[in-house]
């Protein structure tokens, strides 16, 4: 029995994809000896922006500046700094833009408040629509002869 060429091709492609594995191997530095530190390192390098490529996190970026900054995060962690201290360290140099998650400050309050406000408006509008419909069907059932929709 002979398989058609495209089947072989597809099989090769799938096999290749499996072997290649996830393309998450940008950060090739060895893990930190302490698993807790490694976890914080992972979180921090994913929430700090690569300033050169901007929509990538430090952890995902190939540029050498990102590697330097990853090294700095690692060193600060080993030196015993807290996550906030490390964020402050980066913000002092690169500005708040380096944080993917904007800070909760009065200046950013509108940014954080907007989704909640929009959600509130949506809920109020939705509730009123539902109530209006309920009233309509109520009056349909109770007084069907009076307010008929038919002309």
């Amino acid at each position, binding site marked *: 029995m002979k398989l058609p060429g495209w089947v072989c091709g597809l099989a090769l492609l799938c096999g290749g994809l499996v072997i290649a594995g996830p393309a998450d191997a940008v950060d090739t530095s060895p893990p930190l000896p302490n698993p807790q530190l490694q976890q914080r390192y992972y979180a921090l390098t994913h929430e700090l922006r690569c*300033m050169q490529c901007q929509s990538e996190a430090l952890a995902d970026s190939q540029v050498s500046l990102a590697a330097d*900054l990853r090294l700095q995060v690692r060193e600060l962690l080993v030196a015993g700094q807290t996550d906030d201290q490390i964020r402050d360290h980066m913000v002092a*140099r*690169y500005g708040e*833009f380096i944080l993917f998650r904007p800070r909760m400050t009065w200046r950013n309050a509108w940014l954080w408040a907007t989704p909640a406000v929009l959600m509130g408006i949506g809920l109020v509008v939705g509730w009123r629509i539902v109530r209006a419909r309920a009233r309509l069907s109520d009056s349909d059932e109770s007084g069907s002869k009076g307010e008929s929709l038919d002309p």
Partner: protein
Amino acid sequence: MNRFVLPLAAFVLLLVVLLVGLKRAPDKNNLPSPLIGKPVPQFTLPNLFDTTQPLSSEALKGHWSLVNVWGTWCVECRAEHAALLQIKQEARVPIIGIDWKDQDEDALTWLAQLGNPYERVGTDHEGRVAIDWGVYGAPESFLINPSGTVVYKHIGAMTSQVWQREFLPRVSATIGKPVMPGVPASAPAAAGPGA
């Protein structure tokens, strides 16, 4: 018809808000530096021309200086080189170079071939000083006042237009004008050119 007015108005409002947001978003290639108005980050770097005399942030005190972060691997740096040479010729503000993640031999060859606009060059092999300066895309140029405060930063190639428009007015605002008698000579050096 009436029931469409409110949603439509809301949609238009949203559109306007988003458009204004897009238009007013800061230029991603020229982000404001948190260093403006702050003292220059402390550093000591090997001197490219004389290894016995390191270059430190102390060298930036007592006079205006232009700190230029560059590297021979940086394409835009070649493009700005002529402008830097011209600024050197003007002889108003000395240029201090920070050679970022570079090989000393490459840097020396580059300066020998293209001319040397720098009064001094520190070599930042590991890139740590550049990080302290918040550098993310060479070339970057910082204007430092005599008290060692960062006054202005330009990201990207220096040109004579940028120099004339953004840097020189900030310098002449303080050293160009004679100090009036009776007026204390403590005008903030970081004042911009008549905003």
